[in-house]
């Protein structure tokens, strides 16, 4: 299995650097490999810091506020160093301005934040990416505008196998708009090709495209279903059996208390029984949830029209040719 992303500080740093560069937030200070200060454009600031009222105030009163600088430490040591430096700098500045005794007592220097897996800021960045990184329309950088492009419709989805527990897969499926060919694990195959954005017309206007987006999407969805049907669903069987057992226990319990209940309470108890059975079914009842996350149009030059099969695509066994 591929290593899981974002579990090391270096990865997180590269991830943040790439994100902030992509959204136009310049690095205003970089110290070694584990400290960065990014200056946030207003729109990015709104996405990453949770302060809607502040922005409402800024906009309603037409304030000219300075841009926020996000101070990100990627290791404990970097955090400590940064906080020390920030404190000294802020104290120096305050002393030069002159501080009253009271101000000194309540002096609060600015601080940096530690970027760890699962921290608030990364969660905010994920949410921002869900919006900003949802769609794309690209062709290789090497494309000169003259070669013919083969358009591929790409769809990324999370497939969740769910009962009272859950297991998830990231599936990337592409459909060739020329001939309807379906390829699984597509993103991993092309992720190392450098891409440039292109106008959708460059990919769609060709009369050679046999499929429209809508058809391609339908093809991808049915390919997913076909692939799922071929899998083992043991887990679902196990869950179903457990659900049956739980329901029969619930029935047994309510059968045992109903006869002794006063008549006017019986409907209430019946309703309770129904509710409990419904809740167990919602909790344990097996289902597969498919969450479509991203779509893109990717033009590949002729040479690439059948995607490279080398590489690290663990879902390649699904390739459906």
């Amino acid at each position, binding site marked *: 299995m591929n290593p899981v992303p974002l579990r090391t500080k270096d990865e997180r740093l590269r991830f943040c650097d790439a994100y902030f560069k992509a959204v136009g937030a310049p690095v205003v200070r970089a110290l070694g490999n584990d400290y960065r200060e990014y200056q946030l454009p207003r729109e990015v600031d709104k996405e990453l810091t949770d302060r809607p009222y502040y922005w409402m105030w800024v906009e309603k009163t037409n304030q000219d506020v300075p841009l926020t600088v996000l101070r990100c430490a990627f290791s404990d040591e970097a955090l400590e160093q940064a906080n020390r430096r920030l404190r000294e700098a802020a104290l120096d500045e305050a002393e030069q301005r002159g501080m009253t005794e009271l101000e000194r007592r309540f002096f609060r220097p600015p601080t940096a934040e530690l970027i760890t897996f699962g921290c608030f800021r990364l969660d905010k960045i994920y949410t921002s990416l869900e919006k900003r990184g949802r769609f794309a329309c690209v062709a290789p950088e090497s494309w000169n505008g003259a070669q013919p492009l083969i358009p591929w419709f790409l769809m990324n989805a999370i497939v969740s196998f769910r009962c009272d527990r859950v297991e998830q897969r990231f599936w990337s499926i592409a459909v060739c708009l020329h001939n309807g060919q379906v390829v699984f694990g597509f993103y991993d195959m092309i*992720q190392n090709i450098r891409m440039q954005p292109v106008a959708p017309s460059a990919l769609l206007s060709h009369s050679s495209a046999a499929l429209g987006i809508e058809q391609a999407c339908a093809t991808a969805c049915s390919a997913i279903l076909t692939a799922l049907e071929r899998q083992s669903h043991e887990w679902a069987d196990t869950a179903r059996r457990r659900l049956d057992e739980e329901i029969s226990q619930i029935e047994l319990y309510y059968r045992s208390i109903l006869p002794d209940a006063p008549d006017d309470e019986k409907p209430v108890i019946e309703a309770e029984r129904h509710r409990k059975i419904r809740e167990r079914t919602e909790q344990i009842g097996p289902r597969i949830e498919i969450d*479509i996350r991203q779509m893109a149009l990717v033009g590949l030059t002729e040479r690439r029209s059948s995607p490279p099969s080398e590489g690290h695509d663990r879902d390649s066994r699904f390739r459906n040719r």
Partner: protein
Amino acid sequence: MNLSLSKSTAPAAMPPVVWHGQEVQAAFTAYLEKADVGNQAAWTLFGLNVTATKARLARDFDELLVLEHIRGFTPLPHQVETARRVMQELHGRAILADEVGLGKTIEAGLIMKEYLLRGLARKILVLVPASLVLQWTRELNDKFRIPAYAQRNEWNWTQADVVVGSLDTAKREPHRSAVLEVEWDLVVVDEAHKLKNNRTKNWQMVNQIPNKYMLLLTATPMQNDLKELHTLITLLRPGHLGSRQEFASQHMANARQPRDAKELKSQLGHVMIRNRRRDGATNLPKRHVTAVPLELSPAERKLYDAVQQFLKQEYDERTALRRSVLPLITLQREICSSPYAAMHTLERMGKRATSESLRQRIAELMTLAQQVTTYTKVDKVLEMIASLDDKCIVFTEYRATQELLLYMLRKRGVSAVPFRGGFKRGKKDWMKDLFASKMKVLVATESGGEGINLQFCHHMINFDLPWNPMRLEQRIGRIHRLGQEREVHIYNLATRDTIEAHIVHLLQEKIRMFEMVIGELDYIVDDPKLSSKLEEKILEWSMTSESNGELVAKLEQYGDEWLQQVKESTTR
């Protein structure tokens, strides 16, 4: 569960498929129509989004994602194992019945966070005693980065995703309707032994709350009757141990004895997990317990003896007339604490006195009390605190003694804050924070019972002792608990030739509970029949014994019986 992607030979029916995000296609079409040449960084952002998505996947049914999400502490192996078992084997409906201080909160936090991360839970309800609402909220936020919200008004139940509130509030209107309207994904109930009777409002309320996953936390899942277990389990999995009648006939020999302990235990394993200290769940740093013997000053001795004489006389009269001896127990215990504490009770008794002679006798005792000018115990405490280069908790049972101590400490320039059970929860937290950050001494009248953790403190002085081992253990448990990294020192003040000296001996030497595991005490001492009688017994023995020797023998015997019970419960 092994989720093999290979073709299966005997295909099980495919479960229903649910699609989400089908609107994405329309949005994509609109994007293509609008976009000329898109954002230069579009492909980078697309790729970063893939990375972010993959980073958060629950790749495996079994792996615990939560372990990568906690910071600042490392959960103990038994806690991780418990969380894993609750989700994988007990399917998220369980009684967490660890002994006191083994970290049920941590286990519940791990499970909550895991369900949140996996998208299996969004709406979570945590019901805890009112005094613990803020502490739970804080811990969930700090330790687990769960955005938990302390419930304040009736709208919070629906507004916030993770709500911490008290059962007492939740069961009252208008809260009740609000809580019952929400389809909760996970419901956590702390101190769940309050749900052991299915005729109570508490039980009925919890039984009504919609839920998918449910955790019940209690150190004492069963106190008096095996049926209590059945009642708790009915909340989680009705019918799991059969109907009530079937449970009684299949599993119970009598109210307290299972028919087949092994069989019951294995059945319980499907709904309950109990970690115990003696199973090696945890090793706390050592606990040093020292008795500090003291000699009463002549004035104090005179008062003490006079009170004893008064008590004996009153005891005989009251038992002859079958009147309550409760005030006498109080007075006996107070006189061991401080004359100050005793004066309140004496005054009250004086006002209620029916005869002039009684009033006269009490007035004499009051005069004797007023003649005490130096307090041996207080002086000793001041001396001990002065020689300590560390924070210290002083426990007393009485408000009057507490005030005296605070006054004397402040007079000496020692920083000290009070702590009382009657404080509102905000004030409790405030006092705790003050003690943690600025003060040297905390003078407390109660352990806060199910409350406050003070692991940053390593010294405790018991100014007087509760006559109940469980209460003493609760006091000590404030500092000697999970998270304590240093050895702790407990000092028990014991004035010579008073009943207090015997109590210290009984609790500290005879029962030696300090070296024993508290889990066993959970069962025994929490037995209300045993503990409520104890105070009365001690008074009876001290009042009716002809000699000191006889009293000591009776206390010894009591200790032996006690130990016998412990042995029985551990082999049970």
